[in-house]
C-alpha cells in the first residue's frame, strides 16, 4: 500500500518510517496532484494553525475532502486530529470538517504537562505506548464515530468509517501497530473499489 504523509509542516519523516516498518510504502505529499497516487493519507503532528493555513493556501482543504469522500482512508495524529474535526473549541476555525466530533486544543496544558503512557486501543491486543505532546482531546462525538480508546475518561482515539484520529503520536515509538491498522483500512478500501 502507498501511504502519503501530508508534508506541509510537522513530523513527516517519523510517519514514513512507521509506515515502512508496518510494511507499506511512505510518500511525502506536498502537492494536491499526489493524492491520486496514494491509497491512504496521514495528516501528521505539527502546529495545526500552520498546517491549516498552508492547506488552505494550496487547495488541500477541497482536495482532501474530495479524497475522503471517495472512501479513501485519512488518519490524523495530534494536529492532524484537530484538522479533521467538524468542531473546535476556542478561536481556531475548523479546517477539513470531516469527522463528526468536537476537539479541544492543548487540552492537557503546556509542554511541561506533556507525557507518555500505555494505552489500551480497541483492535490492538496489548497496550500501545502513546506520546502526548501539547495534545488535543476529543470532547464529544456523534453516533457515527466509534471510540477506540479513552485516557482518564477522555476520548483519545476514534474512527468514523474511513477516517481515523489519535490525540497522541504513534510515529514517535517503534510500535507501528496503529499504522498497521491504518494500512489495513487502506487495503480494505482498495478491495471494495476493485469489486
Amino acid at each position, binding site marked *: 500500500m502507498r501511504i502519503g504523509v501530508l*508534508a*506541509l*509542516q*510537522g*513530523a*513527516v*519523516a*517519523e510517519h514514513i518510517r512507521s509506515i515502512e516498518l508496518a510494511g507499506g510504502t511512505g510518500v511525502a505529499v*506536498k502537492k494536491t496532484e499526489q493524492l491520486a497516487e496514494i491509497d491512504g493519507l496521514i495528516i501528521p*503532528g*505539527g*502546529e495545526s*494553525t*500552520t498546517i491549516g*493555513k*498552508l492547506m488552505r*493556501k494550496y487547495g488541500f482543504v477541497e482536495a482532501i475532502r474530495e479524497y475522503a469522500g471517495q472512501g479513501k482512508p485519512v488518519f490524523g495524529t*495530534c*494536529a492532524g486530529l484537530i484538522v479533521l474535526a467538524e468542531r473546535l473549541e*476556542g*478561536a*481556531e476555525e475548523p479546517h477539513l470538517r470531516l469527522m463528526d466530533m468536537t476537539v479541544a*486544543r*492543548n487540552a492537557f496544558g*503546556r*509542554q*511541561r*504537562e*506533556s*507525557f*507518555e*503512557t500505555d494505552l489500551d486501543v480497541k483492535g490492538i491486543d496489548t497496550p500501545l505506548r502513546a*506520546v*502526548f*505532546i*501539547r495534545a488535543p482531546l476529543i470532547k464529544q462525538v456523534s453516533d457515527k464515530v466509534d471510540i477506540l480508546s479513552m485516557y482518564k475518561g477522555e476520548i483519545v482515539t476514534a474512527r468514523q468509517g474511513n477516517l481515523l484520529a489519535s490525540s497522541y*503520536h504513534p510515529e*514517535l*515509538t517503534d510500535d507501528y501497530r496503529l499504522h498497521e491498522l491504518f494500512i489495513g483500512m487502506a487495503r480494505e478500501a482498495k478491495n471494495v473499489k476493485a469489486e
Partner: protein
Amino acid sequence: METGTSRVKRGMAEMQKGGVIMDVMSVEQAIIAEAAGATAIMALERVPSDIRAAGGVARMANPELVEQVIKAVSVPVMAKARIGHFVEAKVLESLGVDYIDESEVLTPADEVYHIDKSLFTIPFVCGAKDLGEALRRIQEGASMLRTKGEPGTGNIVEAVRHMRIITGQVRRIQNLSKDELFHEAKILGVAYDLLLDVHNTGRLPVVNFAAGGVATPSDAALMMHLGADGVFVGSGIFKSDSPEKFARAIVEATTHYEDYELIARVSKDLGAPMKGIEISKLHSSERMQDRGL
C-alpha cells in the same frame, strides 16, 4: 504516566519540523507571527540586531512580556536564558514556557558550564557550530539544536558554514572504524556512545534548525537544502520593511524550498529586508557564535 521523558522533549521539537520559529518583542508582533504561520514564538525583549546596537548586558526577557505572549497565542512559546543561568531557566519553566533556548545571543552567565538541561521537565534548544558542540549540548540534555550563525547580522554565511561543517562531520563519522571512533570522541570532547549513535544512524539524534542570519525567503530555503529541519528567524522579520509579508513568505519558502517559482512569487513586493552587517567588520568580542563552546 511520565512527563519530561527524552521522547516527550525531543518529540516536541520534531513537531516543529519544516516550520519557522519567529522572534517577537511584543504581544502585537506575536499575533502577527502566529497569523503568518509561525510554528512557535520566541519571546524576547530585543531581537539580536537591537542587542548589538544597545550593547550592555542582555538577559532573560521580562516575565510580564513572556506571560502576555503565552496568553496571546496558541502555538508554543519559547524564551531565551543566558548560557549557564539555570535560575533564569527555572523561572521561564515556572512561567509555562514550552521550550528554552540557552542562547549565546544573551550575555553568558557562566563561561565554563552550560545548564544541566536533563534536570528540567521542558526541553531546551542550544546553538552549535560543529559536531563537538552539538553532541556536548545533547549530552547536557538539549532536545533540539540550531546553528549559531551570527545573530543579528542578516548575513547567512555563518549559518551556512555551521550547517555544512556539521553535516560534513556526520558523513565522515559514518565511515570511521571503531578504533578511529574512540580517538575521534577524544578529539571532539564528546561521549563515545553519542558518537557511536551518529556513526550507526548517519544523523544527529535530535533535530537541527537553521538560525543566525536568516533574512530572506531564499535564505530559509537555502538552509533547508543544506539539511536544516526548520528555521529560526530573529531580526529578519521585525527589522524588515514589511514584517507580515516577510513572515508569510519565509513560512512558504521553508515548506516549498525546492519550488523556485513559488519562492520567486512570494519574494515579490516584500520591500527591503533587514539591513545586514558584514561579519568581517565585527570585532572578535562582538562575535556571538564564539560564546559557550
